[in-house]
């Protein structure tokens, strides 16, 4: 057991262990499915399926890295370091697109922009717009929904950066732009990596929206290999190869980053002074950010609201709206808290035991985010039903009493599966934040006689609370809009906003689900509004006892 000097038995190791188990178990169960099959289908897949899928995947991924990365970085930098008209509002609104499920965004834009949509119909004698159901369309839509991951991690990183970083560079002769490009931006690289990898993994795991847009990625191959080519083992094999590829990429980035240190000597974080942009530059900046916000959020949101308004007279308020809303919120709040706690435990564990096996394993845990949700759901389903049936068999033979399915069909399994899917969303920001906190703080506290539990509580926790809350909210937003896992694993009779929307949309009666869609958006917007408050507030020490305060001062004011 790790940390017991003061404060008794630490919960950190068990929490990390639980995180590992919950994340790895569905993947292991997929592995057993994969091993059940032979390679009979592979010559066909290699020749006729995967080359196209790989091409579409790489193009989509590259597009998302470039476009979402550029938008997220540009917005975070402009909002953090410059002053332009409406900056405060932008800062508050830039996260909102995160509230959109990708499939919803795709659906709205196809409605608006395809050849029979209002825009093309209005312009048909003037110009023919490029087809929205295309690779370029998919990149645009994915990037508009996913850039906030980059934006939020960079904002947090910039807010946590020592203001001296830019100032020193400038006294050394850099222009503000050079200081930003050469010092402040590179210093935020772990945060960028964390943000873009979340965006990327979500893009890789999607197949509903991309297939609808005519882009068939590896995730779609996994799905179609299961459903139409009729081989679940082969589908599991492809899914695991996808995970292996993502893990390799993550490992390469990890190695590349290891040579550089990103933590800071001091924790005196006064926000950098923002540079006021002048006339043309200010106008250009404002035009750019407001344009992005309009495309990413306002246009589709207004469209949804308009559609929903048309259904108000026919909608069943209780069944179609209030009941799913309450269920969704209860589920999302609980699951997000659970995953945030796991992520915190894991973050602490990695800090204290960064060379241990489990610390390395934790890095692998986030890979569930790159597996198509329905495949991960199957993995979780197999694992937990196996457990239940084993328990049942043992109980029958020992006591003669059947336990039935203990876990399966309860909300608990759903939450466990969410943990496997979304661990990265909680762990990414927390882990990036821990990297930012200089280890010398721990060492100074240790030399001052503090044990790890008290360091965790009084030195580290105050510095990660805002990040933790941010992670919780990101998780909340993701869980509210999650569809495939919820569909397959929810208890009988439970309807969430996303499943309710899907129920209508799958029959093509999208309008009847638009109120639920709006509620998904609303929940996301509420979460994002709180999230936004956190980014403004740099991490502050909590109330501390005098002894602890002494340690704190020793660390922060050397």
């Amino acid at each position, binding site marked *: 057991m790790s940390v017991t000097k003061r404060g008794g038995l630490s919960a950190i190791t068990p929490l990390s262990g639980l995180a590992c188990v919950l994340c790895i178990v569905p993947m292991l169960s997929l592995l057993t499915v994969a091993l059940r099959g032979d390679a009979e289908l592979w010559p066909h897949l290699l020749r006729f399926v995967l080359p196209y899928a790989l091409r579409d995947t790489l193009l989509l991924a590259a597009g998302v890295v470039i476009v979402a990365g550029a938008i997220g970085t540009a917005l975070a930098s402009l909002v953090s370091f410059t002053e332009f008209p409406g900056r405060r509002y932008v800062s508050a609104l830039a996260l909102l697109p995160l509230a959109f499920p990708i499939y919803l965004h795709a659906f709205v834009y196809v409605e608006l922009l395809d050849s029979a949509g209002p825009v*093309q119909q209005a312009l048909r004698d003037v110009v023919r717009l490029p087809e929205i159901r295309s690779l370029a369309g998919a990149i645009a839509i994915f990037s508009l929904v996913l850039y906030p991951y980059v934006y939020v991690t960079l904002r947090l990183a910039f807010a946590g950066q020592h203001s001296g970083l830019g100032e020193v560079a400038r006294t050394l002769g850099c222009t503000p732009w050079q200081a930003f490009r050469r010092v402040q931006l590179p210093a935020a690289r772990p945060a960028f990596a964390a943000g873009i990898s979340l965006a990327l993994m979500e893009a890789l795991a999607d197949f509903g929206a991309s297939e609808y847009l005519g882009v068939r990625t590896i995730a779609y191959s996994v799905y179609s290999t299961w459903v139409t080519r009729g081989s679940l083992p082969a589908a599991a094999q492809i899914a695991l190869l996808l995970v292996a590829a993502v893990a390799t990429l993550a490992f390469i980035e990890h190695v590349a980053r290891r040579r550089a240190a990103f933590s800071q000597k001091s924790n005196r974080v006064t926000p950098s002074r923002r540079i006021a942009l002048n006339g043309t530059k200010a106008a250009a900046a404002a035009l750019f950010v407001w344009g992005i916000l309009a495309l990413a959020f306002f246009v589709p949101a207004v469209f949804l609201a308009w559609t929903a308004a048309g259904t108000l007279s026919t909608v069943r308020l209780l069944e179609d709206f209030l009941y799913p809303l309450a269920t969704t919120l209860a589920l999302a709040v609980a699951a997000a808290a659970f995953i945030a706690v796991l992520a915190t435990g894991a973050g602490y564990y990695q800090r204290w035991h960064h060379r241990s096996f489990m610390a390395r394993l934790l890095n692998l845990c986030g890979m569930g985010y790159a597996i198509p949700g329905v495949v991960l759901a*199957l993995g979780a389903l*197999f694992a937990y*039903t196996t457990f239940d049936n084993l328990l049942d068999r043992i109980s029958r033979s020992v006591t003669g009493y059947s336990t039935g399915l203990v876990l399966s069909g309860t909300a608990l399994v759903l939450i466990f599966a969410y943990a496997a899917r979304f661990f990265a969303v909680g762990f990414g920001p927390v882990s990036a934040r821990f990297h930012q906190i200089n280890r010398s703080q721990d060492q100074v506290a240790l030399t001052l006689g503090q044990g790890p539990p008290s360091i965790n509580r009084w030195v580290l926790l105050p510095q990660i609370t805002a990040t933790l809350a941010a992670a919780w909210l990101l998780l909340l937003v993701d869980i509210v809009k999650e569809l495939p896992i919820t569909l397959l694993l929810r*208890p*009988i009779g439970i309807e969430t906003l996303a499943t309710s929307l899907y129920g209508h949309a799958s029959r093509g009666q999208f309008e009847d689900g638009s109120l639920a869609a709006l509620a998904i958006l609303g929940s996301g917007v509420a979460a994002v509004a709180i999230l936004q408050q956190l980014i403004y507030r740099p991490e502050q020490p909590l109330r501390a006892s005098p002894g602890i305060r002494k340690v704190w001062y020793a660390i922060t004011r050397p």
Partner: protein
Amino acid sequence: MRMTIPAAAALIAMTAAAPALAADGQVNVYTYREPALIEPIFAEFTEESGIKVNVIFAKDGLEQKILAEGQNSPADMLLTTDIARLREAADIGIAQPVASDILKQAIPEQLRDPGGNWFALTMRARVVYASKERVKDTAITYEDLADPKWKGKICIRSGQHIYNNALFAAYLGKHGEAETETWIIGIKNNLAQKPSGGDRDVAKDIAAGVCDIGLGNTYYVGLMSNGNDEQKGWAGAINVILPTFKDGGTHVNVSGAVIAKHAPNKDNAVKLLEWLAGDKAQQLYATANYEYPVRAGIETAPVVAGFGELKPDVMPMAEIAENKKKAAEIVDRVAFDEGPGT
């Protein structure tokens, strides 16, 4: 964490809220059919029989779910579309045979499993949507779709979608692998754009002038005709032609049900199945979802009746299901989903 207490409370509340799974007066249905469609039907059933229907609706994976849950599975019935799925349920051993004279009388022989493992409840035809403005043909065969006269004029959703997959599998049963491959290449060369979207988008694209004809299921036309103004516009822009195979009828697929092998409420499930094949439910399927009832003597919805008389092809459903995998491989081989000119 302070959040964990309310979280745990919510969790317990939700777990406790799950209904008792094996109980008198209940039946548990796993279904791929949309809630808005089946809820009214189940509500009628509950009113008549007093049996409450608990439903799980999902998009995929319910067969695997029942299989994994094993003998502890709460599932009594799997209600699904697509013949291949019904067959798979029987093949992987999650169905149990039902011997019911009521079902035998209600459902024609070719629409149920000889072994009693699965029963079709409705049919849907895969038909040609044709532009009212630009297409003068009133009859067409599936074979004609590969005719170069349609070059650049056909819209279709992904060739791997189960609706197209089943049609291609039926074609394969008629013409063999080599001819089917040539035919699918022919259709691919006739496409106006890369396959994407759904059947509704096909109607929409025809309305917008992107293409002249396309393939879609019959009930979408009914749904669009009774949808909002925009959808009415799409439905109004197309004629439905019931195509046939050269020496055969129109390709139909089915929706249907199996009774789960370990059904804890088997009697109630059989009652429900018999009820679904009865007059009232069959009429609801026909009028609310514009499907073709399997039971004789039930009228189709007026909009569906307007398509003309349906002459379903006689190929056994089982044969279509068997060809499914091969059809999927041909679609891969000719890179159908890459679209025209590739």
